[in-house]
């Protein structure tokens, strides 16, 4: 099963769609969680997910706002979608009856 941060990353990438790359995913996660997301955690998790076949990455185009440096683009694979869906369903099932869940 996916880890918490892996789920956040996959969900952020799926939400961003064609605009999913390192910096945008990081910003998405930081906005949602209210916590800083380190580059180290982000890129090592991306590698791990890619090895598991849950995402695929490629180098995108460079832009001037990035100092002429290319982006590492990300796309969630069908297997990644299934894994994220399974994680979400487990969390929903576990959370039924919890006091903080509004009925």
């Amino acid at each position: 099963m996916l880890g918490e941060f892996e789920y956040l990353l996959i969900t952020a990438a799926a939400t961003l769609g064609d605009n999913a790359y390192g910096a945008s995913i990081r910003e998405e996660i930081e906005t949602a969680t209210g916590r800083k997301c380190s580059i180290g955690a982000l890129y090592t998790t991306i590698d791990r997910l890619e090895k598991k076949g849950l995402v695929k990455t490629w180098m995108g185009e460079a832009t001037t706002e990035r100092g002429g440096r290319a982006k590492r683009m990300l796309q969630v694979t069908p297997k990644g979608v299934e894994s994220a869906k399974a994680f979400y369903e487990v969390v929903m099932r576990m959370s039924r009856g919890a006091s903080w869940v509004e009925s």
Partner: protein
Amino acid sequence: MTHAVRFLLELVSRRLEPDEREAVLGDLSEDGASDLRSVIEITWLVVRRHAALWQDWRPWLAALAVALPASFLLMGVSFSISCTFQRLMGGPQSSVTHAATAHEDSLMLLCQVMLLLLWSWAVGFVVGCLSRRTLWASCVLSAFPCAYCLTKFHETSLTRLCLLLFVPPAIAGIYRSVRTNEINQKTSVALLITATVLMFGAWVNGALWAPNWMLILPVSFTVLLAWRPDLWRASSN
């Protein structure tokens, strides 16, 4: 301060693969991160990347099972060669003596020198092939026994550096593995046969310490590397 931090940033980011360096520096630039923050972030990424390498068994094998024990054995061989050479040159008697004629000593010296070259080169090559990215750790681990023995060395008729005769051929083996971590099958078999013949020759003449038989293992490993390179090399190597 700014120049120093920029220099540090350049230095640290070079530890990343080119594509990753490009992407990470671009992300940090887009975020508007300061140079110091960038240094911290990239350093943490480099540390995590390096820690992940040690989840594989190859770096442990290279460092603990090959480099560390081989250092001890090869220092012993280096010392033995130095004593034999000194005896041939008619130097003061050392604490290690063999009753042999000058002719036999010369042959044994030649045999030991060839074995030292073969063993050291094979150890360097194998350590480099098994885990190129953690080579620095294997070298540091090899340096500890060397440093220890150098401090304990009390033979006044010989220089301490005689313990380090194995270092240049080992470096040559490492260099070869870094340049191209492949070895020709015929070459590896020839190395193994030569080493075995020389070792038997030395053994029969009482010039081979029993534990030194372990040094045939890295030479044998070059044969395995030549035949099935995919089995032994990590994808992240």
